[in-house]
């Protein structure tokens, strides 16, 4: 495989966006959960809710900051590496991303200051309102991003004029049915990420027999939330499959590992697809199930990849395996959430250390599921950037050199690994320190924006505490 500017740009986009999505998917869920916690605290007056809130707010701050920094890069990358896409689709994607920035900026920025430092300056109800507005801001942000990406998956409401996509029906673009199955799918993924991480933290503390009150709240809320949302996610996952089946037959065939037309089609559970021989090795498949999954029928004909010339097919291995990993994560999370919820309901979970361990160790699963889900969607869309209209090879900056693309890829990899390592390490230290180490009342304002949330707290901590953490 030769290193071309196209390949390097694709790698760079994949790397930077994969890095970025980790943080928003975590903070969207957390922001919603913080709103619920604050409401519960106001309703019940129970102090533990407040402790849990203050604790997760710190973690929210660090994760939000990393999301912001890695998001800035995204705003420029479309132009630097994909200038032909930027030029052609700017009239549609530009306004959508403008709405994303504008609405997120107005809501998140406006109310985050209150959330982080305004506890003593505003009425409790207004504080709750601010928390809700930050959560709403993160969801708006996700919404516009999903509208934008859905347009690239299934372009609608445009005409091509003078070499660019000119919008002629914004309602069609925003209210595209694709948006309304993909946006909930992403939103649920974010909620599940928050829920599983919170439950895992609760399980971790319970295993260590620390912070009993807070741990119980985290474990119960996280597990119940996941137990309810996971089946709903299956429904939206299926609806996503339907749109892909309808609009993107090549992606569907790649995910299914189906090379030739079949009637009725079998479903490949596991296999090693081989693009060279256009067949699967070591295939485990169930007859007829493929037609059922694809068309809800026992007799339907399902399309195979060989119906399309090789230049119109996506790479098969990545969507095929990414999809199966995503589903696998879903199955494990469902098991953990249902068994855990049942035991928690029966008040037996604290004795079942194996279940606690399973809950704790499941924290990477929602992240893996989100990332592999996106791999399925984005790699499966290939060889198109705008499906069926603009090829990825035609979207890349035409005069980009291999050397420049190589340099930028290396620089982003280095910097991101560097800040990711430290960011995760600092979040781990916050988690290890646990709730209650921080004063419940936020100190007077020193910062309104996320990157310095816990700075004020740490400033007030005695030297020994920091020295201890250093070791």
């Amino acid at each position, binding site marked *: 495989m030769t290193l071309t500017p196209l390949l390097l740009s694709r790698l760079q986009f994949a790397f930077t966006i994969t890095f970025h999505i980790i943080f928003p998917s975590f903070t969207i869920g957390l922001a919603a959960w913080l709103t619920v916690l604050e409401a519960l605290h106001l309703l019940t007056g129970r102090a533990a809710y407040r402790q849990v809130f203050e604790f997760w707010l710190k973690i929210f701050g660090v994760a939000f900051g990393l999301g912001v920094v890695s998001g800035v890069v995204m705003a420029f990358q479309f132009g630097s590496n994909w*200038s032909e896409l930027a030029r052609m689709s700017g009239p*549609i994607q530009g*306004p959508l991303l403008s709405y994303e920035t504008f609405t997120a900026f107005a809501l998140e920025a406006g109310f985050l200051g209150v959330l982080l430092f305004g506890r003593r300056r505003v009425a409790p109800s207004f504080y709750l309102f601010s928390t809700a507005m930050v959560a709403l801001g993160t969801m708006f942000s996700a919404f516009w991003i999903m509208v934008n990406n859905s347009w690239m998956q299934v372009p609608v409401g445009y005409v091509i004029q003078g070499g660019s996509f000119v919008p002629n029906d914004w309602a069609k673009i925003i209210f595209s049915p694709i948006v309304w199955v993909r946006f909930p799918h992403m939103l649920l993924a974010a909620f599940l990420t928050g829920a599983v991480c919170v439950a895992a933290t609760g399980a971790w503390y319970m295993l260590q027999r620390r912070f009993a009150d807070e741990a119980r709240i985290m474990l119960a809320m996280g597990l119940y939330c996941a137990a309810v949302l996971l089946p709903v996610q299956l429904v939206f996952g299926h609806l996503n499959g339907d749109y892909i089946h309808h609009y993107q037959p090549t992606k569907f065939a790649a995910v299914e590992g189906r090379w030739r037309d079949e009637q009725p089609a079998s479903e490949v559970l596991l296999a090693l697809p081989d693009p060279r021989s256009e067949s699967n090795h070591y295939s485990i498949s169930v007859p007829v199930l493929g037609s059922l999954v694809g068309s809800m029928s026992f007799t339907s004909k399902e399309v195979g990849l060989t119906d399309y010339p090789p230049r119109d097919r996506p790479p098969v291995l990545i969507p095929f395996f990414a999809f199966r990993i995503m589903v696998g994560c879903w199955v494990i999370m469902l098991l953990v959430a249902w068994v855990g919820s049942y035991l928690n309901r029966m008040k037996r979970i604290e004795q079942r250390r194996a279940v606690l361990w399973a809950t704790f160790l499941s924290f990477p699963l929602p992240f893996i599921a989100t990332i592999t889900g996106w791999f399925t969607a984005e790699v499966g869309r290939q060889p198109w950037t705008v499906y069926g209209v603009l090829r990825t090879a035609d979207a890349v900056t035409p005069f980009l050199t291999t050397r420049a693309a190589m340099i930028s890829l290396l620089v982003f990899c280095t910097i991101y690994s560097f800040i990711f390592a430290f960011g995760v390490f600092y979040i781990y230290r916050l988690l290890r320190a646990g709730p209650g180490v921080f004063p419940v009342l936020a100190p007077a304002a020193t910062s309104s924006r996320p990157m310095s949330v816990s700075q004020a707290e740490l400033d007030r901590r005695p*030297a020994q505490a920091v020295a201890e953490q250093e070791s």
Partner: protein
Amino acid sequence: MILFWVAILAISVLLYVLLDGMDLGVGILFGVTRDEARRRAMMGAVAPIWDGNETWLVVTGVVLWGAFPIVYATLLSAFYLPLLVMLAGLILRGVAFEFRQKTLRMRWLWNLSFAAGSLLAAFIQGLMVGALVKGLPISHGRYAGSELGWLSPFAIWCGIGLTLGYALLGACWLVRKCEAEVRDAAYRLIPSLSVALVAFLIIVFAVALHDHLLVMNRWLERPYLFIFPLIALFAAIRLALSVRQRRDGPPIFMAALTFGCAFGTLAISFWPYMIPFSITIAAAAAPHASLAFMFWGAGLFVFPLMLIYTATSLRVFRGKVIASPEPY
């Protein structure tokens, strides 16, 4: 509609330059300060606002893409490497705000990333403006230069000039926000920074004359442009007087006014071009359907909200930064 989005873009760029210029400047001065207590105070003076300031860069980016996609595509792809360096600088300095406070052993690292990141970002921004003024090689609406086609002595001088300018903004901000040693040190820096800045402006002007830059003709064709240097002169005098009288408030406004004048001069001498002198505003503008869609929501309602938010946040954190006790 096109004019509306030109105005929004101009406001966003100007706000970005003034606001982030200020905290990038503080970052640059941070690099030449050794004392830990002073460094803490300097960071404290920008910590509450830097993130909001930087958001104006993202706003600029997306407005450019939505309203003037050709300019967005051309400029960002032309400035591939400088953009990379600028983003790297901005990331490194951004995380330093959070990470620096979390460690003693590794603090030197985040000090370095804060100062170097700020310096790099400032220099590159100046360099890109310089390259734009000098004129990029463009044919058929696409960048036609090499990887380093933007590089010229003129662009480098502009990079150094903007770095000095940002440092001046930073010093004026510190004078307003800090007390005691930090303020005094900033006061001592302002005169030399100003003199250096003027010297660089003269150099830039001389290089522009020597190279017969097209932009010079603009200035001769449009003599009313000289109103801006006059206002800048007035601002500089006010600045000098306030510094001499040690009045903490006015310098930042006077420095900002000077910057505004420089910005106005550039903007009007580019007019009606967006990338001088090859792509005009009219040619770059997105179709009406795109501009109108943005206008009726983001432009008309959300943008004023964002301005109000920026003003409010500056107001909430007005006054001197209270130095927190040194905990280590």
